[in-house]
């Protein structure tokens, strides 16, 4: 079973600023869960597109209700790969990101397309799709809900992180209000979904005793 999610957003910066910021995203105030970042492959294609592979290490935060179901010595760090292609002629960037650890517990894949915003060509549009799945017996739905909630909360952090880095690059500092709003929104989303996931988990547990 797979949970699908898609959204579109935009950044009020030009495509070249956004593509440059993409490589300077970390660290930022919203990325405390990202521990390491490395480019492990990079190549310019014959038609002048840039292919890159980035390896990320992130903290692996399982919710408390899931801890008793997970292997006792499960790693506390998750490894993620992000492949990207930048096309400066077409002014587009495509990324594909997925986890290469913990995949048996939960696997996610994210596909993004960045392009010039068709309504305002000094802005950049980001179309994002994600597929989240879990095959862990009895808990798939709860894990998927949790995974989806965390993903949405991370999307908020990603966009805020981008805006922060872009503002810094352009010599402005983001207002505190923006940062606070993002944190509050991310917490609210995470909390609502946490409650939903907990609920599903306890339902799953009840079913086992029937």
């Amino acid at each position, binding site marked *: 079973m797979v949970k699908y999610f898609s959204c579109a957003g935009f950044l009020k910066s030009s495509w070249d600023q956004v593509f*440059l910021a993409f490589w300077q995203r970390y*660290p930022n105030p919203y990325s405390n869960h990202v521990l390491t970042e490395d480019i*492990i492959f990079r190549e310019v294609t014959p038609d002048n597109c840039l292919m890159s592979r980035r*390896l990320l290490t992130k903290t692996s935060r399982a919710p408390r209700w899931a801890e008793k179901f997970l292997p006792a010595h499960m790693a506390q760090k998750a490894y993620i790969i992000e492949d990207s292609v930048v096309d400066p002629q077409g002014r587009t960037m495509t990324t594909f990101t997925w986890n290469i650890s913990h995949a048996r517990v939960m696997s996610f894949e994210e*596909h993004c397309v960045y392009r010039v915003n068709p309504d305002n060509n000094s802005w950049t549009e980001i179309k994002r799709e994600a597929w989240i799945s879990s095959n862990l017996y009895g808990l798939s739905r709860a894990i998927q809900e949790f995974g989806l909630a965390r993903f949405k909360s991370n999307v908020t952090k990603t966009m805020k992180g981008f805006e922060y880095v872009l503002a810094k690059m352009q010599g402005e500092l983001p207002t505190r209000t923006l940062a606070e709003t993002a944190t509050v929104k991310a917490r609210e989303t995470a909390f609502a979904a946490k409650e939903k996931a907990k609920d599903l988990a306890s339902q799953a547990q009840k079913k086992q005793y029937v």
Partner: protein
Amino acid sequence: MNSVGEGCTELKREYDQCFNRWFAEKFLKGDRSADPCSELFLKYHTCVQKAIKEKDIPVEGVEFMGPNREKADS
């Protein structure tokens, strides 16, 4: 930002600086002149590959944009 290889962070920083300059000033502007960072990348890359092997990180044999192929077909 730290590298996954503890001793590679400085090499990473040097490479990143070189890359960001080339990316902004040449690549994005359509200038096709060769990227001047290949030596720096090689040093950094050698260091990181060692760390990846030591930590047993499963990056081998993963096709570029690999899982995406399946998405495109479905």
